[in-house]
């Protein structure tokens, strides 16, 4: 496992060219490899596991009957098949969206209120830990986001259109930064997301612990901050735009191995 991650880290940095850049890249790869042991994401996973089995909310219930797509209570392998269509809500839902549904139906929480709460605060912090736990239960599994339902295919097409949507004060789209191989912002490697970026890169690396600010970020938070830097207005938490992008990236990443929860700079 550890060895595999080291290789991934090297692969991610080999794009930098030139002799000086090579030694920088090798150094950074060494640094990333050293970080793999003892990823603080495990603290959030632990918290999430406890939240999953603890009776909470107005209904004082656990989430152990939550259906993440593979039947009530099945957590292992659920993450790599999300987002997917759920008949009970009639919606395509990603991990965070589905957890919100379970928190509402099983535990009696107000999901709209949680969605509007600031990230890292209150029940949002609990949702973050739950998402980290669920993702960790698909570690090293390969993405297989379903496209069998019409609404799942619709969301892929919508996600694709959103990915290429140039707008805002800087005319940026997702594609501006994530459309071409081997590109960087400053020294930061950019994964290509319009095709399969490979094992443990892009969609297959989130949720991730970010060492820079000591925060655990889910994919919803990752997309939220992308849109902030894109100078767009804010996407609703677990709204259709972010879920559609999740479908687009997840389907593109078919077969890629999940390393979530990962650790990032």
């Amino acid at each position, binding site marked *: 496992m550890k060895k595999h991650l080291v290789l991934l880290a090297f692969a991610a940095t080999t794009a930098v060219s030139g002799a000086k850049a090579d030694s920088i890249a090798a150094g950074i790869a060494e640094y990333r490899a050293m970080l793999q042991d003892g990823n*603080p994401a495990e*603290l959030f996973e*632990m*918290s999430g596991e406890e939240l999953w089995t603890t009776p909470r909310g107005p209904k004082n219930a656990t989430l152990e009957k939550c259906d993440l797509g593979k039947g009530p209570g099945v957590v292992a392998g659920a993450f790599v098949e999300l987002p997917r269509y759920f008949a009970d809500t009639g919606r395509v839902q990603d991990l965070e969206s589905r957890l919100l549904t379970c928190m509402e139906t099983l535990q009696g929480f107000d999901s709209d209120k949680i969605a509007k709460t600031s990230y890292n605060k209150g029940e949002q912090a609990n949702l973050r830990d739950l998402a980290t736990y669920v993702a960790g239960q698909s570690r090293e599994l390969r993405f297989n986001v379903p496209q069998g339902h019409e609404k799942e295919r619709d969301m892929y097409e919508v996600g694709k259109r959103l990915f290429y949507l140039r707008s805002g004060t800087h005319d940026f789209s997702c594609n501006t930064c994530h459309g071409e191989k081997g590109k960087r912002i400053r020294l930061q490697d950019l994964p290509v997301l319009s095709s399969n970026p490979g094992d443990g890169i892009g969609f297959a690396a989130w949720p991730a*612990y970010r060492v820079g600010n*000591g925060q655990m970020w889910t994919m919803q938070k990752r997309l939220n901050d992308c849109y902030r830097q894109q100078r767009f207005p804010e996407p609703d938490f677990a709204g259709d735009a972010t879920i559609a992008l999740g479908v687009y990236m997840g389907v593109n990443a078919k077969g890629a191995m999940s390393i979530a929860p990962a650790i990032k700079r």
Partner: protein
Amino acid sequence: MGKPMRIRAKASNGKTNVRALMAHPMEGGQRKDGSGNLIPAHFITDVEATHNGKTVLKAQWSTAVSQNPYLSFTFDGGAAGDKILLSWKDNKGDSRTDEVAIK
């Protein structure tokens, strides 16, 4: 009171390796908050590990230890099922002790 630690203790070849993650902000006291006020230092000052009641490591830390600290060390002996206790206390008087069985 702090959040639970993540502790793993594994015995092999007559030694036990302990790896721990502690949930703590390790605030350095140099940063400012949104309104420009200095965020006061908040950090773990002392760590102690015991194996079956015997101290196997003591540490003193500064604010320079990273947020959500990681610690790894190894001691002689230890058998599967033995108890490892890890404790920390911080500069605000908060403390936490967690226990794990050696695997």
